[in-house]
């Protein structure tokens, strides 16, 4: 139930990873980095790529899960505590993207239904996905890849005619400090490495697996960078005001009068991929709770999904405050959990696998 294949991790990185970075992330990045947004993104990608590489290195050396590695070094109780902390981390990490998606639904899909009503059933889907374990992540990645490629390619093609890539010039026009701040304040969108890290021990390391995974990660990064470049090319100075960018970039294509907003079909397709992506941190959170408490996923999945729904209700109109909190105050939490702790896993004992 909790097995995943190397191919599916590759698809996750190539299709699901970029999908999470197409709503509010670009505007947040532009706010600090302006036309040098690609550099900020590159710094984050390099860091996250390091965690992905480290995961593959560990996978090559051991068949243990992260839980088993901690348990092997510090004992079972410590492992349970660390997993409980990670459960909290992924719970928090899931919140901002959820609110992003909720606003996206409001802005792009509805004019006349309160977004919370439309969005509420998502938590049932999420609960269902959590009960199905890692297997569902892998197999959904298989489905998501063609959907992502098709929708992303069409949307980018529709956006290209309106993009002025010269807007990205002059290169390095923004002070380095601002570029670095841009990276730091958007680190909460870079938890995919940590997600992959939790697949450790759940997949069989095969020949050239690291090359495949890192190449897929590079492909995902390239997709995001292309998107960011076109995004800035289309909107330039007003980019900072363009939340839910992916839904805005393609709508100026002139053929729409005779065809209708065909781009909406591809936006919907991409929104489906985003739904899959949103479920993953919650699935990993439930996985951590299950390992920590030694229980089956049914009840934790119900509690976690219900708690997220409750928080979404509670913070219904507080997206900006939440965004500020996550990007400007809690960045260190993301650095610790998504980068430092996984990096420290290299120091853990990789002895005999426990029964």
């Amino acid at each position: 139930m909790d097995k995943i294949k190397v191919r599916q991790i590759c698809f996750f990185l190539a299709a699901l990873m970029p999908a999470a970075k197409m709503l509010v992330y670009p505007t947040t990045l532009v706010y600090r980095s302006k036309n040098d947004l690609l550099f900020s993104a590159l710094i984050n990608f390099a860091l996250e790529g390091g965690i992905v590489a480290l995961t593959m290195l560990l996978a090559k050396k051991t068949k243990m899960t992260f839980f088993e590695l901690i348990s092997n070094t510090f004992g079972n109780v410590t492992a349970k505590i660390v997993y409980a902390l990670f459960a909290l981390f992924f719970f928090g990490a899931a919140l901002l993207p959820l609110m992003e998606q909720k606003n996206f639904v409001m802005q792009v899909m509805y004019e006349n239904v309160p977004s919370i009503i439309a969005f509420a059933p998502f938590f049932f889907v999420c609960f269902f996905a959590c009960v199905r374990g890692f297997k569902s992540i892998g197999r959904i990645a298989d489905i998501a890849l063609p959907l992502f490629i098709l929708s992303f390619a069409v949307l980018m093609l529709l956006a290209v005619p309106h993009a002025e890539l010269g807007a990205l010039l002059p290169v390095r026009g923004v002070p380095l400090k601002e570029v670095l701040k841009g990276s730091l304040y958007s680190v909460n969108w870079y938890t995919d490495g940590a997600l992959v890290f939790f697949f450790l021990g759940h997949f069989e390391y095969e020949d050239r697996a690291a090359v495949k995974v890192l190449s897929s990660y590079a492909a995902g990064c390239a997709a995001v960078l292309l998107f960011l470049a076109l995004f800035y090319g289309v909107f330039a100075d007003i980019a900072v005001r363009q939340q839910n960018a992916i839904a805005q970039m393609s709508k100026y294509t002139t053929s729409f009068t005779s065809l209708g907003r065909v781009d909406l079909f591809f936006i919907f397709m991409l929104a489906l991929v985003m739904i899959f992506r949103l479920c993953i941190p919650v699935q990993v959170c439930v996985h951590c709770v299950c390992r920590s408490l030694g229980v089956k996923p049914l009840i934790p999945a119900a509690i976690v999904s219900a708690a997220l729904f409750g928080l979404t209700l509670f913070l219904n109109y507080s997206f900006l405050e939440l965004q500020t909190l996550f990007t400007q105050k809690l960045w260190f939490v993301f650095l610790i959990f998504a980068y430092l702790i996984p990096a420290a896993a290299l120091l853990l004992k990789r002895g005999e696998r426990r029964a």
Partner: protein
Amino acid sequence: MSEKKQTCKDNIKKLKDILVAEDILVFSFETADGAACAAVYTDGMTDKALLGEQVARPLAAERAPENAKQAAKCLQVPECKEENDFTKMAEEVLAGNVALFIDGIGGALILGLKKISLRAIMEPPSSIAIKGPREGFIEDIKTNMSLLRNRLQTPKLRFYNLVAGKQSRTKIAVGYLDGIADEKTVQKIVKKIEEIDIDGIPDSSYVGKFLAERPQSLFKPTGTTEKPDVLAAKMLEGRVAILVDGSPIALTLPYLLTEDFQGAQDYFSSPYRASVSRFLRFFGVFLSVFLPAFYVSAQLFKLQLLPFSFLLTISGSIQGIPLSPGLELFFLLLVLEILIEASVRMPKYVALALSVIGALVLGDTAVKAGLVSSSAIIIMALSGIAAYTVPDLVGTVSVLRIAYVVVAGSIGTFGVLLLTALILYYLVTSDAYGSPMLAPFAPLIARDLKDTLYKASLFALDKRPKVFRGKNKTRLKRTGKKVENGQD
């Protein structure tokens, strides 16, 4: 067989104590030297002419045999066996065979003289072929097994013969190709059938429900076919066949959702034509499920989805319609389902009149009366027709499109996306008999895609589908090409 001298009368009494029904008859006659003989049989299920010709006449011409072996030699019946257990004798008689008692011989000879009225082998109405074989299964399991054997004349074709149903005692045959089908799957199916504890099995679909790993699922638990050529082809891919006496529909396991999109004719026409047909089937199902929902959500929430000129036409046609788009389409789909249900059950000639009333009079009048819009009728009709591009999925598609319309009418496009995500999560994690239902898409099995979204040429399909995990992987050897696993 016991050599203790027993009278024929005693044996008949014992058997009649078990078989008290009035249609269990006894045919009494004597051998040349006056020993009493009696044949117990079920009226209407036994070939009486053969009983007279090949059993009574030779025995009447000879002296009484001293034991069962001598008696069997004297008879001219190919299927003949000894039986001492009266319960088993009763089962044989109820199955249409004859229990023959002879004075002085204990037990009975069971003679295979079953004869029941069967319909002719004909083309199944549910899967008409323009090109390709036209024969179809009938209700008799032995005939169906012989039709299959005729297509797979190999000793590797094996059958497990089982019986299920406490009262019906229905015969079930689990057929597979040794070495090609996965042995674990075969054993699991046999075990599940052996565990069936039910009064009767009127049709193979009952067995399908017991074999289902998720009995409450909206999706089919097993593959089905009425054609021996299709069944043989599926078995050659590594599937296991389940034939049930009394049913012309054979079941196949493991079941993949994509197999319903494959038509027998795809394999007899060019791969290009077959690929176009496949695409149309996928598109047809997609259209059938999503078109009503997108129509509703486009009207309710996202008018930009529609081209401007089309939007004007629709807005003209929906003016004055009292129902909301969701309700309008929901009721129309309901009417469509009622029409389908009624036309299936009505006598043929009434059904013709009904379809005229339903489709023309009702539809036209409803539009003219301003109850529904003409565009909603078109959407409903298109969706209804498109579902029949894949007849095996009509039941599932009908339920899904109603669910989608309800969701689209209440929470719009995002609801449609959420329902799709839910269904996909369900499908990708639904494994039955070791094979994922959504294979070869999830998990992705690149090699098996050749016969799903498109149909590659015959020579490209040289390997059996990987998803079934059979030992023998090669199904086609090309001259001069080395076979990878060395198996034939």
